C-alpha cells in the first residue's frame, strides 16, 4: 500500500553539498523550503507561476523553477542554489563577477535566477552569440536593466570562463 501523507513527508536531500533531513508539509514549495527552512534567501520568488525565472535553482544538474516543485518531491535529490556558486564570499563565480563588473543588475531581484541560468547556458555553449544569449535568458524577467547590461555581462563571463579553464570544464 502506498503511503498517502496529509501531514508530513520525510525527505533527505542535499543542498549545496550539505545533507538535510526534514519533515515537510506536502504543499510546501521547494522555493519556500529553501528560503524559510534552510534560510537560503538567495532564491527569490517573483511570480510563483513559472514565468519570471527568479526562483531558478539547479536540481540534479538541471535548471528548474523552484516555485513549481514541492519539497516533498525532492527526497534523494541534489539541489544547488545561488549560495552554492562560490564557497568564498570574496571570490565570486565568473558569471557573478561579470554581472558586478558590467552592471548586470540594479535591484538584484532577478539576479540569482539570471546567474544560474546563464552559468548553465555557458557551460553548454561557451562561445554564444548575442541572439543565443537573449534566447537563453528569455525565461528570466528583469524589470530594471533593459537587459542590455545583462547580455553584456554574460558575454564577458563567457570570455573569462574561456580564459580560466582551457580544458572547457567549469571550475
Amino acid at each position: 500500500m502506498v503511503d498517502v501523507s496529509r501531514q508530513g513527508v520525510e525527505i533527505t536531500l542535499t543542498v549545496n553539498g550539505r545533507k538535510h533531513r526534514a519533515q515537510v508539509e506536502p504543499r510546501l514549495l521547494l522555493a519556500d523550503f529553501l528560503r524559510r527552512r534552510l534560510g537560503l534567501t538567495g532564491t527569490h520568488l517573483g511570480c510563483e507561476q513559472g514565468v519570471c525565472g527568479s526562483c531558478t535553482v539547479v536540481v540534479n544538474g538541471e535548471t528548474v523553477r523552484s516555485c513549481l516543485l514541492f519539497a516533498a518531491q525532492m527526497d534523494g535529490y541534489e539541489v544547488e542554489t545561488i549560495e552554492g556558486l562560490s564557497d568564498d564570499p570574496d571570490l565570486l563565480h565568473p558569471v557573478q563577477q561579470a554581472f558586478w563588473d558590467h552592471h548586470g543588475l540594479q535591484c538584484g531581484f532577478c539576479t540569482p535566477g539570471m546567474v544560474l541560468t546563464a552559468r548553465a547556458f555557458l557551460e553548454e555553449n561557451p562561445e554564444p552569440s548575442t541572439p543565443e544569449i537573449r534566447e537563453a535568458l528569455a525565461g528570466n524577467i528583469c524589470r530594471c536593466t533593459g537587459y542590455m547590461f545583462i547580455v553584456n555581462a554574460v558575454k564577458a563571463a563567457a570570455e573569462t570562463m574561456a580564459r580560466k579553464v582551457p580544458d572547457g570544464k567549469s571550475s
Partner: protein
Amino acid sequence: MKPAQFAYCAPRTLEEAISLLEEHGYDAKLLAGGQSLVPLMNLRLARPTVLVDINRLNELDFVESGVDVIRIGAMTRHHAVATSPEIREASPLLSHAAGHIGYRAIRHRGTMGGSLAHADPASELPCIAVTQGANIRVDGSTGGRTIRADELFLEQLTTALATDEIVTSATFPRIRSDEGWGFREFVRKVGDFAVVMAASVLRVVEGRVTAARLGLGGVEWTPRRVTEAEQVLVGSAVEPNAIEEAARVAAEVVDPISDIHGSADYRRRLVFAMARKALQDAVGRLEVSRG
C-alpha cells in the same frame, strides 16, 4: 506556501498509481512535470485533495524505436524529446516543436504525458500529436486502451481520459524520406505560449503532393487538422500558388477563439501566415534532402 492543502503520495509502480486514482476519483490529480498543474495550484485554480506524484515511475520514461513509428513514454521530459537523436531521427517535427515549449528550465521538468493530458489548446505536443496522427496509450483500472490523438482532445483542458486513467505513452509515425515537414508559431517573446502555431507534413512523389497534413494549435479550443486545406494540396504540383491557396482555405475554415492575446480576426490572419510558412518549410526541407 500557496497551494491549498493536499495529501501527497509517490507510488513506485504504474499499478499503484492507478489504484490510487481509482480510490480517490475526482479528488485526485496526477503530478507529472507540474509545469502547468503547479501554477494552477499556486493560483488555487486547481485544488486537488490528493496529489499522486508519478515522477518515481521510471517505467514511463523511455523511447522505443519501431520500423514505422516511435513510441515515447509519458514521463519523457520535453528537453529529452527536443534533444534525443533517436526522436529527432524519427520525427524531426516533434523534436523541433518540443524545443519551442516554454523555457529550458520548464522543458527540464515538463513531460509528454502531462502535456497531452493537460490539453492546453496553445501547447505544442497536442498540436503535433493531432497533425501526425499519434496514438495515445492510456492505462486504467479496467485495463488499457489506445486513443487517437484527434479523439483525445474534447475541449479546452478536457480530454477523453477517465478519472482512473493515466497516459502511459504516445506513438508517433516516423517522417519518411519522401516527406518534408514544417513548424511555425507566432509568439510575443521566445518561450511564451503561441498565439497561433501551424505544423505540416507533405509527401511528394515526382513533383506532386501525394499526402498532406496541416495542423493548427492555439486557434480553436482544441488542436485540429485542416483537411480542407490538405485537399487543396493533394494531387497538385508543389508550387507557391497551391501553398498560398491551401493557407487561404485554412484561414477561411477555422473558427478562431478571441482573447487578450488576439482577436478572432487577428488569429485568422496569423493562421494564413503560419500555415503558409509551415508549408513552405516542408517544401524547402524536401528540396534540401534531395540536394
